């Protein structure tokens, strides 16, 4: 089989209804996931870097409610909902002067 150079990137997907905030994913994949004040994961980036794929798979396997999975990311397409929300905060900060 020929390995194409542009293998599709994987993106983590969280089923938010299933997720119960165990937080194991963030423990196993802290490079990509952090937890909010109630223990629910926040995605730090949309695509899994190649060197983290094994860790990402381990995080998927570690979720006790099977709420985390990896999906091949369509080329050139970033899920808007997975883009980190930082611009929001920056806008608010600068406007609120705080």
């Amino acid at each position, binding site marked *: 089989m020929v390995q194409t150079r542009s293998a599709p990137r994987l993106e983590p997907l969280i089923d*938010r209804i299933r997720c119960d905030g165990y937080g194991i994913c963030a423990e196993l994949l802290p490079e990509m996931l952090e937890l909010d004040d109630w223990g629910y994961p926040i995605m730090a980036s949309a695509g899994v870097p190649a060197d983290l794929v094994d860790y990402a798979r381990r995080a998927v396997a570690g979720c006790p409610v099977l709420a985390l999975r990896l999906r091949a990311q369509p080329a050139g397409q970033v899920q808007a909902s997975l883009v980190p*929300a930082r611009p929001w905060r920056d806008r608010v900060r600068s406007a609120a002067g705080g």
Partner: protein
Amino acid sequence: MNTAGTSLDLLSGRSLAAGPETHDEHVARYGPLPGGGGPNDVIERLEASGLLGRGGAGFPVGRKWRTIAQRPSGGAVVLINGAEGEPWSAKDRAVMSVRPHALIDGLIVAAEAVGADEAVLYVGSGHRTARKVMTEALGQRRLPLPIRIVDAPERYVAGEESAAVHFINDGDARPTTVPPRPFERGIDGQPTLVQNVESLAYAGLIARSGGTASAGLVTIGGVPHAGVREVELGTSIGEIVSASGARREATQAILLGGYFGRWAPADSAWDLAYDPAELRAAGLTAGCGVIRVLGGAECGVEMTSQVMAYLAGQSAAQCGPCVFGLRAIADATERLARGMARDDDLARIERWGGQLVGRGACRHPDGAAGFLASALLTFGDEFQRHARTRRCGDAGRPARVA
């Protein structure tokens, strides 16, 4: 000049107070619904019209119809979304209550264009007049497909499209994890065209004669003459609210798009054109068509507190970030509004608000986050003042007392 498709023709004519337009009156105004032309012609007209959905998300109507029409095989369902759970919106009820046949035209056109063999009218259970008028009007028309009326629960999220499909299928009006989206797998597993009432009524008009989607319905509040109006897209927001009695010097800010919408200071909103695409370019949204004027004597923090409390209470309570995040934000905002803020409440609201986006099965947290972000921008000074002095307004009037 009133050329076909460019006139304000959904609510023009007979006054809204005069009750529902009969089928005869409807035909006298528009002529009979032309048959033929073919589904593709209709979809091309819709695409060319630029009509965007009027339920809130603003998805292009023609593209949605084409996606469903192009399925390889099998049936499809048209779901008319008249849940209208948005507290400040009344325009879908107005269409159903006074222009039922325009909506039915839209249904017939949609059913033919996408090849649907079943339809559902999903109408908010509190909207009794709308339901009654639609039931009678549907009985007077010969429809190419069976339709049933389903009463939508009176919950904000019940109108979200996956929640609507979930309720009709299983009696549970909570959103589901997408994909699959309703256009892929909806009612009874069939591809389902979910279309807001206003969108479908305008689609029916555009299907007749083509033209540009140049009018829209708004529900204006916070003004002396509140209510539903049909406006020509591109009219300035100041002109629209002035016609309802608002005065610029007495206006502090304007909310566009309802509870999932955006606040803008009166000075920056007044001369903006009310047009979905232009509003989006300005970082605002037409959303579901709600325009709420905030008067100079009203408090933006207080208003934000009330809306966030409502949205927290209306969470479907399925996803942790929405359940806990919205509740915490609502509580902290209420403390600010009441002059009981804790030292870090404002900073926490900013942080929690930023974390909501994209973290629910549906867009409820996203909608709330957008509202909150715009409130923090528009009422930034007021939020700071509440946080620092625990008092409300320039005059130092005390914050709301419980």
